[in-house]
């Protein structure tokens, strides 16, 4: 087990290192200086600015500098907003995205799991058909379409909820639902196929035969096994929710890190782009790492060869 954790940790670090290296060289492969797009600067000033951001050093020194800074969790300064550190930006905007993301994950689980159970329990009946229609719609309609439609019909037409912003719990409902819709459908499908498979197993028949009630069989015996793939999916789910926030935060004008990330792309603020990419990547790798470890611990069928 310890060996497995160590190995997984090593792979995560390796992946992170590759991402850092790739993004560093991608950013530096671009010709011209970052400031050439703006007004032409006098050479002396340009030299000064380059020296300030360490751009005058040879490439390998810059690379090592970036690596040591990142190891110290220092993401550098924004090139677009003078005097703002990327760390400050992340500290200010990430909590907003994180709360939206957490809310969505809760909604995904609260909506997706029951939907999947109901549909598996009534396989082939109308409940199953209805939930399968919802699921099919969920995985085919892109998040921004759900968001825009919800905004138009619920906020603009019916005036039930605020159109944009993220101030009160009322503001959170639409973005949360829009962000979780796709994954809710995905989880429902996952639970359904897992349940259908598990319900045909011999031990379920045995449990029924010895006189246990249907509820006990479903919740105590079947669900436990059907839920496992969902836990394995939590890592990709976190990644999906995170990138989903780019779009949802834009539609609802939520001041989260996703929206900031996208605007830094159009501002070509390279230090922010790189810093936030590395931050996101590290965050996701950590999530996937934790999920993998949990999965091995709770599923007794996985035997690690050592």
């Amino acid at each position, binding site marked *: 087990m310890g060996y497995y954790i160590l190995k997984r940790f090593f792979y995560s670090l390796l992946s992170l290192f590759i991402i850092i290296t790739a993004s560093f060289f991608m950013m530096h492969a671009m010709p011209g200086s970052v400031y050439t797009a703006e007004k032409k600067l006098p050479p002396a000033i340009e030299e000064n600015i380059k020296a300030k951001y360490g751009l005058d050093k040879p490439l390998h020194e810059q690379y090592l500098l970036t690596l040591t800074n990142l190891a110290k969790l220092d993401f550098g300064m924004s090139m677009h907003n003078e005097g703002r550190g990327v760390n400050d930006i992340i500290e200010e905007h990430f909590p907003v995205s994180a709360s939206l993301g957490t809310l969505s994950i809760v909604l995904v689980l609260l909506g997706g799991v029951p939907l999947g159970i109901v549909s598996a329990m009534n396989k082939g009946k109308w409940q199953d058909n209805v939930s399968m229609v919802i699921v099919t719609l969920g995985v085919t309609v892109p998040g*921004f379409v759900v968001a825009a439609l919800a905004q138009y019909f619920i906020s603009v037409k019916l005036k039930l909820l605020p159109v944009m912003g993220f101030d009160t719990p009322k503001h959170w409902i639409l973005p949360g639902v829009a962000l979780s819709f796709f994954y809710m459908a995905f989880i429902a499908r996952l639970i359904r196929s897992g349940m259908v498979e598990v319900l045909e197993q011999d031990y379920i028949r045995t449990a029924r035969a010895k006189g246990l009630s249907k509820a006990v069989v479903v919740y105590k015996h079947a669900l436990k096994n059907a839920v496992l793939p969902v836990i394995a999916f939590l890592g990709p789910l976190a990644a999906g929710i995170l990138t989903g926030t780019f*779009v949802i935060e834009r539609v609802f004008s939520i001041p989260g890190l996703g929206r900031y990330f996208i605007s830094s792309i159009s501002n070509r603020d390279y230090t922010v782009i790189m810093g936030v990419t590395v931050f996101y990547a590290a965050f996701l790798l950590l999530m996937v790492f934790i999920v993998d470890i949990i999965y091995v611990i709770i599923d007794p069928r996985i035997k690690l060869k050592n």
Partner: protein
Amino acid sequence: MEISTELFKPLNKRTPAREEAVRPSLTYWKDAWKRLKKNKVAMICLMAITLIFLAAIIGPYLIPYSYSEQIRGEEDLAPCREHLFGTDGLGRDMLARVLFGMRISLSVGIVASIINLTIGVVYGGISGYFGGKMDNLMMRLVDIIDSIPTTLYVILLMVVFKNPEVNIFELPVLSLFKGLGASLISIYVALGTTYWITMARIVRGEVLSLKEREYVTAAKALGASNMRVLFKHLIPNCIGTIIVITMLQIPTAIFVESFLSFLGLGVDVPMASLGSLAADALGGIRSYFYLLAFPSLAICVIMLTFNLFGDGLRNALDPRMRK
């Protein structure tokens, strides 16, 4: 018990010694097609996909406006007889723009899937066929690439490509496609090089089991080279799986493209893709809802038909479903 000779009869010479085949033998493809035809949903989707392709390819020539033409004095029209989908704020016909957007989205879906298919099949095939240390190394690499968040990587790639000072046509291969515009090529490349992991893994698995078959031994005994065995014997035998994965990858690519375009990382103006049309419409959602409705509807229909058809195809081509 006594056995009398009366119990025995001479065999009628016309009766064949073995059992006759119950049904005419079908090739893999005939069998798959037969099963696909029985699946009503898949067949409806196949027809819908054909119509979508026809609309995207021929459609723009059938309407009198081009996607970038601004008709002065006809800005912001609601859907009417002249402009079935209305016009946008610059007086451009929305029907023309949506059809053009469909063309872009479909082309991204198909081109990206073909690039992914090629990389994935070659990578997975080589890894599975040669096995051993090489396989181990190649699969560890896949594990690492797999743990890199794809969307972030695609966004990063698009940031580099969309830098006005980067000229991707300097690369020799890409200079052939100059006519398509830099942004579109960037999307092809960015999406085409990121989503091949699944294909590589599955092809590897198939090749790993297929290479133990007798026909591989026979081919090798006849002196076939490794490359010949791999590409003439093994890969053609996993073609069913490859087609199914490609078919399901097309909507994924279209999905990601619309996501990128929505964020402003997609095609450049005046070109339009379904995602960028939806993004442009967002600002005027209160007054000009139809500008959002039509492109959104087009994305949903494309996604739905491709996904359902892909599911049907999987059921039809999966050998385990074969009776």
